[in-house]
């Protein structure tokens, strides 16, 4: 299979349309499994009680907020380096979903912080750098739409995405570099300090978020492709696009 064939919007458009429903279906299945395991199977936490179950939405959305930004910046770099149209469109398609996950991570963190730390918000290094990530997403979206010529918007927003990637290690290592209220990582590549059912639930929810993000990005990129390519022959030739 020649993957470069799908780097053209005309070839990628039908492929994205075929794949998106499968990713949404997988996301729904994984989320159902993750929530069942998280709320029914996983035991109550000895220290935090029931409120720890916020972890099953907070951690996966926080992971996705950073991962989506990383992928978006990679697409941005590809768009800048090779002037490839589809890369810039994919970066645009990922940004709103990344912003949504970042907002949910901050929101759920606040509602986890109140009963455990006694406050909804604190200007802690981890939380503040995550807020900066949300502003980076907003900045990317605003910049991408600020120009009449969408290709100029693509270039400006891609540049911001690439520069903003410096914030990712700051978020990740903030709990080690500074003395923060936010706890350190419970899951590392070398192992986890969590109970196996808790970890399984969290990983299922993370996979669900991942599948949802891919599905949403595919649906959004199809709209972007239609908008951008509406004057081309192949779009006009689409019977029922």
């Amino acid at each position, binding site marked *: 299979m020649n993957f470069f064939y799908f780097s053209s919007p005309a070839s990628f458009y039908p492929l994205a349309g075929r794949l998106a429903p499968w990713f949404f279906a997988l996301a729904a299945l994984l989320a159902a499994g993750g929530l069942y395991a998280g709320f029914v199977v996983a035991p109550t936490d000895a220290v935090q009680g029931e*409120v720890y179950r*916020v972890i099953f939405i907070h951690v996966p959305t926080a992971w996705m907020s950073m991962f989506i930004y990383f992928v978006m910046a990679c697409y941005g770099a590809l768009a800048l380096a090779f002037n490839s149209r589809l890369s810039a469109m994919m970066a645009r398609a990922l940004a*709103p979903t990344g912003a949504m996950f970042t907002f949910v991570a901050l*929101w759920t963190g606040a509602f986890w912080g109140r*009963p455990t730390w006694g406050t909804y918000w604190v200007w802690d290094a981890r939380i503040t750098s995550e807020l900066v990530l949300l502003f980076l997403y907003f900045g990317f979206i605003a910049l991408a739409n600020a120009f009449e010529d969408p290709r100029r918007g693509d270039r400006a927003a891609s540049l911001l995405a690439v520069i903003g990637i410096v914030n990712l290690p700051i978020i990740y290592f903030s709990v080690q570099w500074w003395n923060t209220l936010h706890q350190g990582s419970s899951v590392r590549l070398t192992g986890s300090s969590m109970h196996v059912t808790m970890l399984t639930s969290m990983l299922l929810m993370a996979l669900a978020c991942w599948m949802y993000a891919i599905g949403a990005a595919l649906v*959004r990129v199809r709209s972007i492709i*239609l*908008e951008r390519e509406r004057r081309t022959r192949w779009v006009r030739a689409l019977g029922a696009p």
Partner: protein
Amino acid sequence: MAEHGFYLAMSYAAAALAIVAELIALKVGRARALKHVEEERELEAQD
């Protein structure tokens, strides 16, 4: 669960709401793109 039910409910409800809002936005975006394609077709038909 009752002691911390509010915090759990606010977390999961907000997440669900955010996802529903995004799905609606995706649907609206698609409808707008299709409308623009249709307008382009009509413009060309007039020419």
